[in-house]
């Protein structure tokens, strides 16, 4: 395996190609990212955030599902601990991606790895790990960075456009209904076998019944129940 370091001039052309390969391969996914980012901007306006706060959230958090959940809770005046706790639970899956992609980045320096971690997303992770396995001669960080940085740029532009557009649309149109629709589009493929389906069904049912709980705790209770049911189903099947 090649030690692919930054200063390797002889590999310049090929590694530029690796960066652009990442940009190219991620572009079809933008069809899903653009509406998602627009909704994040629209939901920010709906929750009472200004442009600076909306962009601040997209830059600092940069994780769509958790941003939408946090905005929903901020808009309904949930306690700060519930807003943060919910978003954190949603993003804990990043630990799984970090663990899975870490061996591919082990050879790079600490600073580069710290930068690569910032742009880690569901899409950049899934795309890159598949490519690393298929094409081991790639400059891994360049390919990953091409994909992940493209997602970052589109996410920020989409947020700004969503804020501008969202401010001009009448409430009766119910544009924030696009938020659960985005989650639905992510949920369906996440229920890919029996244990994950059981987890989703249980979590959804409990969350509906527990919707009246104070502090918006129904979401957390539902999610924890779903995880437990998923694990139990896996044990029963094994």
């Amino acid at each position, binding site marked *: 395996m090649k030690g692919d370091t930054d200063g390797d001039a002889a590999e310049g052309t090929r590694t530029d190609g690796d960066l652009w390969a990442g940009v190219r391969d991620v572009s079809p996914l933008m069809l899903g990212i653009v509406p998602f980012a627009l*909704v994040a901007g629209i939901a920010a306006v709906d929750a009472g955030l200004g442009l600076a*706060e909306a962009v601040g959230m997209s830059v600092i958090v940069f994780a769509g599902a958790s941003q939408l959940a946090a905005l929903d809770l*901020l808009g309904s005046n949930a306690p700060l601990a519930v807003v943060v706790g919910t978003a954190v*639970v949603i993003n804990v899956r990043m630990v799984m991606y*970090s663990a899975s992609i870490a061996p591919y980045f082990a050879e790079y320096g600490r600073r580069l790895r710290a930068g690569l*971690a910032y742009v880690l997303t569901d899409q950049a992770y899934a795309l890159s790990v598949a490519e690393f396995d298929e094409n081991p001669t790639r400059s891994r960080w360049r390919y990953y960075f091409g994909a992940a940085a493209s997602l970052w740029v589109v996410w920020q532009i989409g947020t700004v456009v969503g804020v501008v557009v969202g401010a001009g649309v009448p409430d009766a149109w119910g544009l924030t*209904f696009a938020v659960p629709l985005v*989650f639905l589009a992510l949920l369906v493929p996440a229920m890919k076998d029996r244990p994950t389906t059981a987890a989703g069904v249980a*979590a959804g049912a409990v969350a509906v019944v527990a919707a009246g709980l104070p502090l918006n705790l129904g979401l957390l209770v539902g999610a924890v129940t779903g995880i437990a049911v998923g694990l139990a189903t896996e044990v029963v099947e094994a």
Partner: protein
Amino acid sequence: MTGSSLSASSLRVWVAILLIGVATYGFRLSFIHLFGRIDEVPARITRPLRYVPPAVLAALVLPDLVTLRPSVAATLLDERLIAGAVAGVVAWRTENVFATIAVGMGVLWLFRFVVFA
């Protein structure tokens, strides 16, 4: 809205953003940073994590689509549930975020502005 309540809510928003951002970056960096010191992630950690996406997403979506009402008919005859059910089928068949949003919003508007109007 008064100036003082605006700044208080703005502070609340920024505190939330920073706390969520720091935690999320910690999750992203965790194993990318640690790798080399530990060889393999224990199954105790990875097994439950597998169920986080479906469980959290379902717990987010369903309460936005379903509101329990005194009668079954009143619960089912809800524009959000109908739109969500149709959008769910689209999500399942196409796995396309854009198509799911477009169809879901279309059905919502159809019921809100035409059928139930």
